[in-house]
């Protein structure tokens, strides 16, 4: 190792070293999760023909749902493949499940390293605290990107197999637009992670915070408190709008990205000031 890894003192710490290391550690779990979400997606796709067959009854059922409930789960158009997947796969699997997953992992990131003493060793190197926070967070791109890529391919292959019609661009967009949403959830988890610095606590707080924001958005938007609803990241990612109406809310994605940057910057600033313990 010495021969090829020899780095003069001025060149260390190499930027991206921690990111590369953390990313590789996350790869296996991300692939497993990608396969899991793909199976969920394929299951939903496989269900669709029989759902469609029961057409009229289901429309009546959807009509009869309380509007708030229908909105919370993106139930608008069960009888189109896009509408069905938006409600059954993306509103649940992406907005809720993956949102919670990324927040949970972010919650465990810095706090976990602090708790088991790994942070002491990392920070005994000439690496800055900000860099540790930023590169740890950036490694969350791995599960976000891998799960989306794998599931996108699986769902697309599934729709071809059942001869379902779903615009390829819409399907691509629903995955791409989930990236800033999921990273924003990660940003919330990260801030809690540096603020609390106890792994279990930060993980639970991150889960609770993202889920609470989802509920707040659901309740507030159906009650007409749009300003309150606007506080939740879930307000800026709407699979139904993409898959039913073909609307890509790029502005919302930008907003989520800006919010994420602010959350990461705040996390770095907090971690710069606290005692690591």
């Amino acid at each position, binding site marked *: *190792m010495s021969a090829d890894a*020899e780095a003069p003192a001025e*060149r*260390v710490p190499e930027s991206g*070293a921690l990111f590369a290391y953390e990313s590789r550690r996350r790869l296996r779990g991300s692939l497993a999760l990608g396969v899991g979400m793909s199976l969920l997606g394929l299951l939903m796709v496989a269900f669709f023909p029989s759902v469609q067959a029961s057409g009229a009854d289901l429309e009546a059922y959807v009509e009869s749902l309380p509007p708030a409930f229908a909105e919370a789960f993106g139930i608008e158009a069960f009888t189109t493949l896009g509408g069905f997947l938006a409600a059954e796969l993306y509103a649940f699997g992406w907005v809720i499940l993956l949102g919670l997953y990324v927040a949970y992992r972010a919650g465990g990131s810095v706090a976990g390293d602090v708790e088991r*003493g790994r942070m002491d060793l990392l*920070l*005994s190197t000439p690496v800055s605290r900000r860099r540790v926070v930023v590169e740890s967070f950036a490694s969350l791109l791995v599960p976000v990107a891998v799960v989306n890529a794998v599931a996108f391919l699986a769902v697309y292959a599934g729709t071809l197999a059942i001869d379902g019609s779903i615009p390829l661009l819409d399907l691509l967009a629903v995955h791409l637009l989930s990236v800033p949403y999921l990273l924003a959830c990660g940003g919330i988890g990260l801030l809690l992670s540096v603020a609390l610095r106890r792994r279990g606590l930060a993980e639970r707080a991150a889960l609770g915070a993202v889920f609470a924001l989802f509920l707040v958005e659901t309740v507030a938007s159906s009650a007409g408190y749009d300003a309150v609803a606007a506080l939740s990241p879930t307000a800026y990612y709407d699979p139904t709008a993409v898959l039913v109406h073909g609307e890509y809310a790029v502005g919302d994605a930008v907003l989520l990205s800006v919010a994420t940057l602010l959350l990461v910057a705040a996390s770095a600033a907090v971690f710069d000031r606290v005692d690591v*313990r």
Partner: protein
Amino acid sequence: MTVIDCRQLTKYYGDVRGIDSLSLSVEAGESFGFLGPNGAGKTTTIRTLLGLQSPTDGTATLLGADIRNAAALRDARRRVGYLAADPGLDEDATGERLVRLYGRLRGDARSDELIDRFDVPVDRRVGEYSRGNRQKLAIVLAFMHEPDLVVMDEPTSGLDPLMQERFYEFLDAERERGVTLFVSSHVLSEVRRVCERIGIIRNGRFVTVESVADLLDRAGKRVHLRVAGEVDPADFAFDGVHDLSVGETTTFTLTGRYDALVDALDGYRIEELEVEEAPLEEVFVRFYDDAGTDPAEVSA
């Protein structure tokens, strides 16, 4: 050059005292032992020096960098190695991947040599390592960038005696090269083996800072004596005799010069006389006894 310079370094956790007004300087090339029972403030001092937590009061410099100046301290850490008591190595990573990561973070001038020397199974995952192998990997990570200062917290915990000796020999070689060592330990024999000067810490304050030689002088010599006939205790009532016990074998601790002992022995027919270095533990225990702390926490 002063490598570590603590000036009234103080750290409280809320109302709980970690360390209080520690002042100390360690010069380049020196090996300093930081001795005290668990909870005395050793780890607090180290973590404050490394910038992991900020001092409540006072300050310190590490290789010239003020520990309150994050950027300066970060730069100084290029030349620092840290061997933590519990390094929190990633269980799922192989030793090799960790060596590569830390090589990219702090430089790697000789990891191969150290891996060979300490016989670390770097191709296996850390999760499969024994306690000793983890410690050996941590040693490689702490020394591979040829640091000028190495801070060690209980460095030989988990190492078997053979490996401990190999590590001490390695430390001797590092000292030859001029590396400064700062060794925190609750094991006296270790500090004695590695360090030339020690500070004894208790409840966050120094009880004493002095050279190992001075401390040993103060500890004195242990004398075992067997003579033909009876020993008269009055002959050994001179200054410098402690803990006299007269019997078939007479034993006592002697501090100061030998002349008085030689005079006292005049007239006895000596069958056996053994003079050996008193165990440092005794001095150490004296410090703790004075302070009313349980010496049982300190082991040899």
